[in-house]
């Protein structure tokens, strides 16, 4: 049996671990475009900010992969999948045949059309270690003191914080009326915005960059509102798109991401996909979505790995979730927390310092937000995933002492006796 894994992100690596749990013999080949293998993408902002050392960038090591008998081909890009020949073709033209294939190719940053963007120095996207090296080098070489981050999402915010750690003054430009418009609600966004401001970060909302000025290197950006902001650096962080272009015409079904079933298998038997490049169902609303977050990539990767190695494991679906700590304010948002409508029952708690919110639909918890008091947030995540009927305890959800103690006895008992499994077998 020959397993070929494309992509060395968390989806790919956890699939390998799952395969090895079941099959110690089969041949495993990891092909990745990445130069560094086993490093953690989310840590690049921490690296830039000097909060993590290079050695600690790795959450898995190449040696470990070799130890479990994985053949690693780094800096190798897959350009084609030949479904009929059951092979992939790399950028060097080499064909690698497979019995089972996992596409764990993740996503790539989206770059919009902006006047004057092309060919200028000082403009970056920020999703890989190599990006980090480039940005760090540029900031240091040029002695950059001012930067604009386009996009007030999670990566934008983390990038801004990292740049501030380097002593750069940052302006965040967000097209929506507030930062973190997708994952957080208005109140939470406001609180995080306040926190950012205490760090000296300027936040501009309801606006976007329409022009980049400068000769060889960037010198300023012009906003839609007409405002011009002088800057030595522009980081574009307005989202990622699944890496699926190279699959065009391959016969593998793609929508926004690669379509998979609950075994993480594509329409082509023996070819699987997981992580940021895969499109599966949202556990709460049942819609097909790409949910590009780390825990989902790991879980899907493992499910794919088990199934590739011959077990039969089903993945019930994902929910969006995120945790960020900005300026010492920890926040968590899980599930469908930024929603409105009659079908939702919403409870909130606010005391100036903390903000908590739970969203209930059809008597089930579907979303939650926590600002500052995040300590037992995981319980809520678990309840959303388990789709437990919350009628008996919903009034208690925001109580200070909320915990397992308020859950139905039988459910708690099962939980305490075992644990909570995310996938089903």
């Amino acid at each position, binding site marked *: 049996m020959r397993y070929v894994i494309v992509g060395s992100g968390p989806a790919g690596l956890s699939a390998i671990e799952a395969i090895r749990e079941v099959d110690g013999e089969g041949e495993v080949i990891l092909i990745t475009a990445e130069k560094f293998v086993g490093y953690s993408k989310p840590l690049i902002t921490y690296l830039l900010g000097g909060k993590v050392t290079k050695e600690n960038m790795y959450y898995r090591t190449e040696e470990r992969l070799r130890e479990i008998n994985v053949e690693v081909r780094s800096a190798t890009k897959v350009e084609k999948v030949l479904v009929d020949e059951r092979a992939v073709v790399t950028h060097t033209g080499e064909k690698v045949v497979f019995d089972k294939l996992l596409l764990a190719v993740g996503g790539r940053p989206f770059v919009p059309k902006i006047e004057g963007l092309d060919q200028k120095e000082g403009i970056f996207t920020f999703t890989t270690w190599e990006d980090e090296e480039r940005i760090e080098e540029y900031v240091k070489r040029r002695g950059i003191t001012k930067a604009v981050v386009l996009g007030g999402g999670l990566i934008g915010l983390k990038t801004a914080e990292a740049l501030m750690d380097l002593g750069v003054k940052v302006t965040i430009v967000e097209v929506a009326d507030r930062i973190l418009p997708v994952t957080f609600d208005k109140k939470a966004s406001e609180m995080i915005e306040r926190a950012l401001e205490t760090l000296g970060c300027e936040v501009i909302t309801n606006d976007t960059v329409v022009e980049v000025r400068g000769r060889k290197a960037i010198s300023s950006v012009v906003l839609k509102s007409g405002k011009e902001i002088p800057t030595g650096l522009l980081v574009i962080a307005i989202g990622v798109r699944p890496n699926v272009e190279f699959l065009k015409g391959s016969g593998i079904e793609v929508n926004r991401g690669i379509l998979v079933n609950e075994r993480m298998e594509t329409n082509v038997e023996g070819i699987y996909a997981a992580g940021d490049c895969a499109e599966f169902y949202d556990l709460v609303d049942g819609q097909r979505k790409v949910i590009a977050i*780390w825990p989902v990539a790991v879980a899907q990767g493992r499910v794919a790995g088990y199934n590739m190695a011959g077990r039969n494991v089903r993945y019930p679906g994902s929910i969006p979730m995120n945790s960020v700590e900005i300026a010492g304010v920890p926040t*968590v948002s899980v599930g469908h927390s930024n929603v409105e409508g009659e079908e939702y029952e919403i409870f909130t708690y606010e005391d100036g310092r903390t903000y908590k919110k739970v969203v209930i639909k059809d008597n089930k918890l579907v979303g939650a937000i926590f600002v500052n008091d995040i300590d037992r947030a*995981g*319980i809520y995540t678990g309840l959303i995933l388990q789709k437990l009927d919350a009628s008996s305890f919903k009034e208690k959800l925001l109580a200070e002492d909320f915990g397992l103690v308020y859950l139905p006895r039988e459910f708690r008992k099962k939980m305490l*006796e075992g*644990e*909570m499994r995310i996938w089903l077998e």
Partner: protein
Amino acid sequence: MIGVRKILIREEYCMGCKLCEINCVAAQVGTENLIKIFRYVPELPEPKVIVEEHDYITFALQCRNCYDASCLKACMTGAMHRDPRTGAITVNEEKCVGCWMCVMVCPFGVVKRNVKKKKVASKCDLCAERGSPACVEGCPNEALVLIEVRE
């Protein structure tokens, strides 16, 4: 299949005395003499077990050291890891960056933050050094029992 040690929580026998909490603190300090600890240790560590209580329902809860651990799947630094020797899930403080992904996903809500250090507070490792968990040993009613399960 691995044999994993687990603490079985039996809420039907938990009296809510919270002796597990102080025994945990003592085990962390490293001496069993509670009086000495109380009198002479200036800053006591937090217990790694919490007692939840409401009405007559009480139970002690510590990390379940899940087989399919959500925290392991969420940790993006590799700080959360399973100790190959004990099977317990422990945190490597040096690697932890305080992203709180583990806090966000632990369905038992037992990952504690060390706010000062901005890292996950060292968590229950079933008293790996000590041999048998202090909370289990000290429970007067066997509401906590150490068992071995095959996964």
